[in-house]
């Protein structure tokens, strides 16, 4: 068993029994569900909107080379420096290099899952720079030295009491149980950081090929300040973020908000097409865009699962997933949690080490049904299972299935197995769930139904 697999099992076991934790997550997600259903109902045709969105992303991903070149060329034409990074390490080096060249003292950062993926903050801090997360949820988890709990709601697992204690300890603020006051404490703490930061780092929700713009979706205004005040702006994004046309946003902006947070549209949807242009009154003097591969082309090469690159990181599949709701976000041990994380992490990291995530699914299909860009999520979990076994067969499973085939091909032997099963069931309770039980992992929390007193064939024979 790989280390991440052992950690997943241990944490999942602990957290599924933690009723307080489960209550917290389920209350939060219930609120989301009610809001989302209300906003979805306003659409004239949500299902057609999904199909259209899926086709637009299909077009983008299946012509990715063309659109990326167009995106980069348009950006460069207006003075943006575009960098290409094959690996996480290269992306870190590029960004640390820019920050060094600017002789920056402090960096303000808005939410970017791609930055979590490449552990950017660690690299910057290691190089001696202060980085402050400005999204409230991200700021809270940064103060706790934790990874985000959810790709959209990073601090969903914390109560206001815990956050108040954290602020009291880290910022010296007075204790309060008002979410509003807590938000204002963070607002005051971060205001000066925007003004004094030399470099602003952002993520990106959509990269518009047609006009060479990055689109950032947020509610708080922190990304807008990050992109307005510091002299240097750096945007890090995965190569799959491309959308072909500017007006594709007319569909994607509302769908992202509805699927992701149960909003009609988020508070700020901003587009950035370059550094400050001649005649403009503010904005950064330098704008750097870092395009990250980090094995996305590996996923692209798997035509069967290519649609996983359609993902717009709305988090809707996490919110409906019965596994996520019970084991929580940190248990995954990945940058991207929930169904989409279970699908893509084996591609972005390593199949054998991360295949357990694809097993941790009831295959209920709620993720596939809710996905706004129609990623075939639960089938991809099955395909990961298949690929993992094809790549590295499990010896005892092979023997077990051979035995099963042997038995099923021999009716007389199969007849004999039934009275044996009935006999076995009498004695099984003696060892059920103990170390002696070969099926312990299954039977310690489950009961098998009794073997029927007679089979259908016996019933038919005896019926007269």
């Amino acid at each position, binding site marked *: 068993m790989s280390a991440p697999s052992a950690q997943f099992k241990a944490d999942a076991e602990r957290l599924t029994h933690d009723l307080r934790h489960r209550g917290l997550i389920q209350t939060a997600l219930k609120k989301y569900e009610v809001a989302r259903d209300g906003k979805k109902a306003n659409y*004239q045709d949500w299902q057609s909107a999904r199909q259209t969105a899926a086709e637009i992303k299909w077009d983008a991903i299946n012509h990715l080379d063309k659109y990326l070149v167009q995106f980069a060329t348009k950006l460069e034409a207006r003075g943006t420096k575009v960098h290409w990074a*094959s690996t996480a390490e290269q992306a870190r080096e590029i960004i640390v290099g820019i920050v060094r060249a600017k002789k920056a003292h402090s960096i303000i950062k808005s939410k970017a899952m791609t930055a979590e993926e490449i552990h950017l903050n660690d690299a910057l801090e290691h190089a001696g720079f202060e980085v402050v997360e400005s999204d409230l949820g991200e700021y809270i988890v940064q103060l706790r030295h934790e990874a985000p709990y959810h790709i959209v709601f990073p601090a969903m697992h914390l109560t206001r009491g815990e956050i108040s204690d954290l602020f009291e300890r880290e910022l010296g603020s007075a204790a309060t149980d008002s979410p509003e006051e807590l938000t204002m404490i963070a607002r005051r703490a971060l205001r000066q950081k925007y003004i004094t930061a030399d470099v602003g780092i952002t993520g990106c929700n959509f990269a518009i090929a047609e006009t060479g713009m990055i689109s950032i979706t947020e509610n708080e205004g922190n990304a807008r300040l990050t992109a307005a005040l510091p002299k240097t702006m750096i945007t890090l994004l995965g190569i799959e973020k491309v959308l072909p046309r500017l*007006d594709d946003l007319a569909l994607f902006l509302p769908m992202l908000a509805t699927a992701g947070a149960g909003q009609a549209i988020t*508070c700020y949807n901003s*587009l950035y097409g370059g*550094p400050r242009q001649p005649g403009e009154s503010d904005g950064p003097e330098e704008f750097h865009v870092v395009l990250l591969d980090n094995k996305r082309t590996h996923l692209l*090469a798997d035509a069967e699962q290519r649609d996983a690159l359609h993902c717009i990181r709305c988090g809707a599949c996490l919110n409906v997933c019965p596994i996520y709701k019970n084991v929580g976000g940190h248990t995954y041990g990945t940058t991207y949690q929930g169904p989409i994380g279970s699908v893509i992490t084996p591609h972005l990291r390593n199949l054998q080490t991360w295949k357990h995530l694809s097993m941790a699914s009831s295959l209920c299909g709620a993720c596939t049904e809710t996905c706004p860009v*129609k990623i075939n999520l639960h089938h991809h979990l099955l395909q990961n299972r298949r690929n993992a076994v094809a790549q590295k067969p499990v010896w005892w499973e092979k023997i077990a299935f051979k035995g099963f085939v042997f038995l099923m091909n021999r009716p007389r032997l199969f007849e004999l197995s039934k009275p044996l099963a009935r006999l076995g069931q009498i004695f099984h309770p003696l060892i059920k769930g103990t170390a002696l039980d070969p099926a312990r992992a299954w039977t310690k929390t489950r009961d098998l139904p009794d073997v029927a007193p007679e089979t259908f064939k016996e019933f038919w024979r005896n019926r007269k």
Partner: protein
Amino acid sequence: MSEREKILGSIREALAVNAPLPGAHDHHAPAVLRHRDDDVSQWLPAVGQTFEQRVERFHANALDLRADFHLLNTVQEMGAKLLEIRDGENWQKIGTHRGELTDAVSAELGLPTIRTDDGYDVRELESCDAGISECDALVAQTGSVVVSNRSAGGRALSVLPPHHVVLARREQLVRDLPAAFILLKHRYAPVFPSFFSFITGPSRTGDIERILVLGAHGPKKLTILCV
């Protein structure tokens, strides 16, 4: 070989094998890309055709988002409304930019004024009680205000002060998001401003127990005055 060529090479190699069409797992999925060029207005939330219906929708959205929306008859009324807000909130200093509507009303306020047009001091702007700007469009469907650094005095004016006041004209109220993008292209292409934003309500967060709090990092208040 540069990283750019390396990545583009891997992409081209990967795309040599075709992927199944989107929604292939769905029984209703078409066998070709049929909806790629659909007019998405027909899927999005419906908005009426008349001006009255658009105003009604914008108003309802503003209420829902906790933004203030006032439809006024004249620029004089707009000025009077601003004076009322100035006194109500005891403004001491404002930020604004040069524009037909902003020029018409900001002088009457009689307050120290930072104009962002030719550059400004960030700390000065940060200490303003309100940022007063114009916009490119209002979107009835979502209650959004579309701004760019050309129409609204730069990137920071509409987000840094605690109260953002938008001055708009009736003809700027468009029906839905697709119409807003058509308007932007029509107005600016091919040389777009370096910044646009669709502002929908005052800044907000739900990061603490999913409870809505206004004024996370941006303005705590958004007022839209339309003549």
